[in-house]
């Protein structure tokens, strides 16, 4: 049942995301991409869950490395998107 729910979430998010992304003009495609990049770092949530439930040293290390990499992705992605978006100005 839970898998089915997740599958529904996957499909619905994909459809809603498509609608939102299509409205973004080419002007902002690079920031859109780096923003999406940051969002794909959401995998930090999975890394947190895995590390939280880990007992063995090996899985804790694997989980911690995943948390670090994903956090770099999230933080760097959002900060650099912010930097870019602030450069766009009207005359």
């Amino acid at each position, binding site marked *: 049942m*839970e898998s089915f729910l*997740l599958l529904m*979430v996957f499909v619905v*998010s994909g459809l809603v*995301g498509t609608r939102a*992304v*299509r*409205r*973004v*003009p*080419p*002007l*902002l*495609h*690079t*920031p*859109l*991409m*780096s*923003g999406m*990049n940051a*969002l*794909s*770092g*959401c*995998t*930090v*949530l*999975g*890394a*947190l*869950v*895995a*590390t*939280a*439930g880990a007992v063995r040293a090996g*899985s804790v290390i694997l*989980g*911690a*490395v995943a*948390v670090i*990499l*994903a*956090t*770099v*992705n*999230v*933080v*760097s*992605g*959002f900060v*650099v998107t*912010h*930097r870019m*978006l602030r*450069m*766009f*100005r*009207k*005359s």
Partner: protein
Amino acid sequence: MGGDEHTIVAFGLAVGVVMGIRLMNSPRTAVAGNLLGASAVLGAIILTLGTHGVMTHGVILGSLAVGAVIGYVLAVRVAMIQMPQLVALLNGLGGAASALVPLSLLYEQTLVPSLVARLSSALAISVGGFTFAGSSIAAAKLDRRIPQRPVVITNYGIWAFTACLAMAIFTVVILGSSSWLALGAALLLLINVSGFGVVFALRIGGADMPVGICLLNALSGLAAAIAGFAVGDLLLVAAGAIVGTSGLILTRIMCRAMNRDLVAILTGRGVAAIGGVPADEVAQAASVAPVQTAEASVGRPSLDSVLHDAKDVIIVPGYGMALAQAQHEVKRLADALEARGNTVRFAIHPVAGRMPGHMHVLLAEADVPYEKFLDMDAINDSFKDADLSIIVGANDVVNPAASTAEGTPIYGMPVLRAGEAGHVIVCNLDAQPGYCGVANPLYQQKNVTLCFGDAKEQLSDLIRRLSDAS
């Protein structure tokens, strides 16, 4: 997982993410949109920490802090010209994390009881590992650490088939055994898909990179979504799905703008074929092209008078402008022209540069107001009425041969009709054909002045001529 409250909050945060993307539809609201998205993710991290009771887990908090510091420094230090490689690198990190999550789960052995969790673990390792390896190579190519030319691999089909077969076997082992055997298979699977990713990225050429990056972006989202299935996290599944579709939409836009078939790009077809063919054409073009310097030949208007008389000017930037870091000179030239009461607009081809929107960002960095950027469809009919078009480091995207040179990689690609302007100034490095290897007949046109050399110097020369003239 974690009860109804968790699901409701996660749903709310997912809505926040989508609202954030919707705000990206205009530069005025985009900053707020990005902040909204970032806040939603921060909220999701806190929610996850709370739900799993690890608010004070030393290793987790330490890892978050280390990642945040590295990420912040990386983002603040990077130059705008390095944006494509940064995006590729970050895609790779996300993919790597998505592959490590199921590895950690499998190592723990008690955490992946269900078949669905096992299957998604195997898939997350596959897609995540592929994304990591492919993105690393793409980033190295974009950073010019390894050659940009596509690498052609003989017997690729046989290799690919063997690799796929091995992947299937490893996946079955992961599904069927709950011991160290599954972990071993997972590691072999990771090595296998990484090799696949490396080969994939090596086969993509420099100018096809916009497509390659978009696709890797989509895959990093897909990997995250699958990892979400493995751990049963609703928000991760939602976010991954959104990133995946966004990447796919951009991939399609890029393919259409290049009139290229996605499959052809992925298999290196077309580009690989032109490798040796046009060599003599290249030489021919280089020798035939009348390299006209500023001292124009008889019967043609001099560069000074062209600059002096132009009222309506369109500037066409390309990847060469990015390479020469000439965006600030372009801005100065535009300012100098506008100071004389002229209109200056910028015509931007969708695949100019190495990633979608690359030119827009560089020009915005140089402080050019964004309402002067016009997309191909919006500006193409204006070239014939313009007095002057100035091409800065663009070749294939203005090559008129795209509509005539059948059988070449650019045939059928929509291009900017810069050659239709009253006069054309070309500030390119040399007369060599662009990435697609097709000589540019524009260079032979009567109304064209070629200013070959470093774009910065050539633009500075134009600016000097303008100030001398007035």
